[in-house]
């Protein structure tokens, strides 16, 4: 069984630093591939070596499979950690690793193919018996009417032969159904040579709950769920574990569905199965599987005590999981706030630049994952997330109180951040009550705008 001695990290920012942290703890060397813009980054200084992959634009550096592979080989690495984003779910990189004898710290190319395309993934979910948004193919207006009665409005009409959102029609009430169906069928026939359409319930809101999967290819375990419902424009802003006020039977069903999906595709690595949850109806629907470490993995680490990066590396080395499901216990509650360099007063415009001061002291129950230090440069080329504040408490209320303290105490000067938004969320009654859905944050922002 190959033990990894030197990891090439094909990423940047806080996740590069996060991987280096665990590598240092377990005695693995690291080489960090950086773009020209990240030469002086914390990760470049912390890694045993850093190598410049290319210019600042990610397409010529962090997204270059060739540069990453050559750099990893040239620096004598035996494995590549892709972090999240960039090449983390890129089948070509995983395949290239296999071809040249590098360990890809992630799932197999086949696993990546199984989840990389949403329609393929939906097929696997159906086969695995994992709930999808309710719907069916229809051939006539009568069939459509019967189905609509069953599903309720709003509905979505999709071409069976279509894909990627093409040819979709939203239907808000019964009066529109017949005409929209006709239109959709004739468009589908014209576009795809196949008039069949599919009608499904349009789920406009719900809670975003995801299951952390750990699999060594033999055992598929879960490390509980995360609630990531607080989103703005599909970007997660605050995450927590466990999901508050989730009925036990629903929680158990979601966790089992996540494991069932991973088992069905023979998944082997760390991964996350995402669901949209309708708590009122006690129903949930498969969204997608992310075949990599998530940004929000720390909340799971805080409540389980696991080091997910260390487990991900061990699985990639071929080690069987030294855990059973019963060994994974959950203690307390954890919340993560993503600190972004953006100006919430100016339509969330990114706010890159030089950080003049950065101070994240140890506070009870606070964990900070960041690449920020005094003098750090936030380049304009990449994501604006610059730090993750994670608090853990015996109860959710304690985790919230600790996050409020953290937001008062920490300092990050020189760029604008969304810290005031986090402070507002932590004080907001609906958030404090817990269990909000994906409409929550847009509503809160509207309320904040209209409150002087």
């Amino acid at each position, binding site marked *: 069984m190959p033990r990894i001695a030197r990891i090439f990290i094909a990423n940047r920012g806080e996740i590069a630093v996060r991987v280096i942290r665990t590598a240092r703890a377990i005695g693995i060397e690291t080489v960090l591939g950086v773009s020209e813009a990240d030469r002086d980054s914390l990760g470049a200084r912390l890694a045993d070596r850093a190598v410049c992959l290319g210019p600042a634009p990610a397409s010529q550096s962090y997204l270059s499979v060739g540069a990453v592979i*050559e750099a990893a080989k040239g620096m004598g690495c035996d494995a590549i950690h892709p972090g999240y984003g960039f090449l983390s779910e890129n089948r070509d990189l995983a395949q290239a690793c296999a071809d040249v004898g590098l360990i890809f710290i992630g799932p197999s190319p086949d696993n990546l193919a199984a989840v990389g395309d949403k329609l393929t993934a939906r097929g696997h979910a159906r086969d695995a018996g994992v709930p999808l948004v309710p719907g069916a193919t229809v051939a006539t207006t009568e069939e459509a009417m019967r189905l609509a009665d069953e599903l309720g409005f709003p509905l979505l009409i999709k071409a069976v032969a279509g894909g990627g959102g093409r040819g979709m029609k939203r239907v808000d009430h019964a009066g529109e159904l017949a005409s929209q169906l006709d239109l959709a069928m004739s468009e589908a026939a014209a576009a795809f040579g196949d008039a069949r359409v599919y009608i499904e319930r349009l789920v406009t809101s719900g809670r975003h709950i995801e299951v952390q999967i750990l699999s060594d290819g033999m055992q598929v375990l879960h490390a509980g769920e995360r609630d990531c419902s607080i989103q703005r424009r599909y970007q997660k802003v605050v995450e927590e574990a466990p999901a508050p006020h989730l009925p036990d039977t629903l929680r158990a069903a979601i966790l089992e569905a996540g494991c069932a999906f991973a088992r069905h595709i023979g998944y082997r690595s760390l991964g996350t199965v995402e669901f949209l949850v309708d708590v009122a109806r006690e129903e949930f629907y498969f969204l997608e599987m992310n075949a990599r470490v998530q940004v929000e993995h720390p909340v799971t680490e805080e409540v389980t005590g696991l080091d997910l990066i260390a487990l991900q590396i061990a699985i990639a080395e071929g080690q069987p999981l030294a855990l059973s499901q019963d060994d994974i216990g959950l203690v307390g509650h954890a919340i993560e706030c993503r600190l972004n360099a953006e100006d919430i007063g100016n339509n969330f415009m990114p706010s890159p630049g030089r950080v003049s001061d950065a101070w994240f002291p140890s506070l009870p129950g606070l964990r900070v994952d960041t690449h920020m230090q005094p003098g750090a440069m936030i380049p304009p080329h990449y994501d604006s997330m610059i730090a993750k504040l994670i608090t853990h408490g015996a109860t959710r209320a304690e985790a919230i109180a600790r996050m409020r303290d953290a937001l008062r105490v920490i300092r990050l000067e020189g760029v604008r951040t969304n810290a005031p938004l986090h402070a507002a969320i932590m004080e907001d009654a609906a958030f404090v009550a817990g269990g909000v859905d994906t409409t929550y944050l847009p509503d809160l922002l509207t309320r904040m705008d209209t409150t002087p």
Partner: protein
Amino acid sequence: MSGLTREDIDYILRLVDGSDFEELTLEMGDLKLELRKAGAPAPLAPSAEPASTPRPAPAPATPPELTGEGLEVPAPLLGIFYHAPKPGAPPFVTVGDRVGPDSVIGIIEVMKLMNQVTAGVTGLVTEIVAPNGEMVEHGQTLIRVKPD
């Protein structure tokens, strides 16, 4: 860089040369100028050997940069640098050769793809910096050329 001319930089360089200090950092707004006397790895004039360099050597931007020993021709991309078109063949250039902007000075291989590298400048080759058959990172100096 309005307000800071070549003469200014020369003047500051002379200042440093005449002083006991090893480093000088000059910051003007966003501009940061770091100078270091010969000795430690020099940020202004990096000297190759990535495998033994714990930090990436600062990238000379294309076009080539001027140093004391001539213009540095940087690697336009990361990959394996070859001096010759194939093993055993004579190198594209050697010290003393004259090159023009389009003269091929070597090949960089990235995943079996061969990329010709041109000098980008006219002059005399003074040094072959990057070793044959080893990885060069983006921006690493390949050769030095004394311009006409």
